[in-house]
């Protein structure tokens, strides 16, 4: 164990868009940083995303997720003050005096990182849904299917039922069509589609039925999914008897939201708040993205489910704050942080950010 122990000033867990931007920001301000990720590659969820991004040039508009991940890979390589550990999973977090101790399993060996400042950018995981036979092989997370199809070129089946019309549901349904897989329907329990209109319109143009006020009752099949039963719901979102319909599909995708991956924060008793608008339990953090534990910062999906562009800016702000904690504040760092905060504010102006803003207000008020 001893030979594997290291000490660092700033450590970041998670090399998704949030953690990557944090690392680059710290490096460009002149700091040194260790970035760890459990995967053999950087990019987090970006590597499986094939749709083009919107927004500004700084946020890589016009590029596809996996292309952005490639750019990040190059940017990390270019900076000698970023140390990168891949195949390295943080499994434990402890506090000792003012230091943070990360238990890391790297290439199947346990090692100890003692760090002054820690940024947690661990992202999120997919939600599950309650219905009969939901454990049948062939009931997959939509993001999981995205991994199979876009990252590894494997079709999970021929014909799919997509449950959920948020952005992930809509985007993945379209990506299934691109992979020559039939999408029997996209169903949504609410009376209207919840994802962005652009993504909805693309599917509509391809003739995919998008059924609002519908839910899934059960999966059918002996060893694996052979079909699904869906039905209409009333205003209270309860199934309406007599409206059941059987669909012949060989897999079912669940795109019913994400939950922040907060395990490490629970371990150190950080203050967490239940805020449904942000995806469930999220860590409390201040305007510098510092949690209730001094020296521990968060950014990206782990601090509230949003999307990649906002995750990147949050990463930059958390990165600047972490840098200031070790190397001190400068006019330059303060000005940069203000600029980033403004960018984030501007990104959240659209109607789709309403929910996030409500959630953030609750977070600020501490309940």
């Amino acid at each position: 164990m001893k030979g594997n122990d290291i000490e660092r000033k700033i450590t970041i867990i998670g090399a998704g868009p949030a953690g990557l931007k944090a690392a680059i920001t710290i490096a460009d301000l002149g700091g040194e940083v260790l970035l760890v990720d459990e995967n053999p590659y950087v990019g987090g969820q970006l590597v499986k995303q094939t749709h083009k991004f919107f927004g500004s040039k700084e946020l890589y508009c016009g590029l596809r997720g996996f292309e952005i991940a490639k750019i990040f890979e190059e940017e990390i390589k270019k900076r000698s003050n970023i140390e990168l550990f891949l195949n390295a999973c943080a499994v434990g977090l402890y506090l000792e005096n003012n230091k943070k101790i990360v238990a890391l399993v790297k290439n199947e060996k346990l090692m100890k990182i003692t760090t002054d400042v820690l940024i947690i950018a661990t992202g999120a995981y997919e939600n599950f849904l309650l219905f009969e036979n939901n454990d049948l092989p062939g009931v997959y997370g939509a993001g999981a299917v995205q991994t199979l199809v876009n990252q590894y070129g494997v079709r999970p089946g021929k014909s799919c039922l997509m449950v959920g019309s948020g952005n992930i549901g809509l985007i993945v349904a379209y990506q299934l069509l691109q992979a020559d897989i039939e999408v029997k329907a996209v169903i949504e329990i609410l009376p209207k589609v919840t994802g962005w209109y652009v993504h909805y319109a693309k599917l509509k143009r391809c003739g995919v039925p998008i059924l609002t006020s519908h839910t899934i009752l059960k999966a059918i099949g002996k060893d694996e999914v052979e079909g699904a039963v869906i039905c209409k719901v009333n205003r209270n979102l309860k199934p309406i008897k007599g409206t059941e319909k059987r669909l012949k599909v060989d897999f079912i995708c669940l795109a019913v939201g994400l939950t922040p991956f907060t395990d490490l924060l629970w371990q150190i008793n950080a203050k967490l708040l239940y805020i449904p608008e942000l995806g469930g339990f999220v860590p409390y953090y201040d305007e510098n993205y510092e949690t209730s534990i001094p020296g521990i910062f968060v950014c990206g999906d782990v601090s509230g489910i949003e999307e990649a562009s906002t995750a990147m800016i949050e990463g930059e702000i958390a990165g600047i704050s972490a840098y200031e904690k070790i190397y001190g504040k400068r006019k330059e760092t303060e000005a940069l942080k203000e600029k980033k905060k403004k960018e984030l504010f501007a990104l959240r102006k659209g109607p789709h950010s309403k929910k996030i803003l409500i959630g953030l207000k609750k977070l600020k008020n501490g309940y």
Partner: protein
Amino acid sequence: MPKENYNPRIEIHPILNFEKKKLVKFYFEGKEYYGYEDEPIACALIANGIKVFHITKEKKRKRGFFCAIGRCSSCLMKVDGKKNVMVCITRLKEGMKIERQ
């Protein structure tokens, strides 16, 4: 739309190019199969039409792949004699022996 000659491996895609890696042999429940080196074991299984990854002890319910990012534990299998391996994030190597645990 569903295809006559259904192939789980995507050959043609409007945006993506899947570089072919080395084809390797592996064993599932003693039978020989092929997959690409370093792809997640789960991908190789699904590409070979295998969707049932394990059967629960008491209720004998079948379980498969779910999250693909090492979070949900739905894909635990025995790999080269080692139990509880998450096959969605463990990479395929030549000669691997994969079993339902």
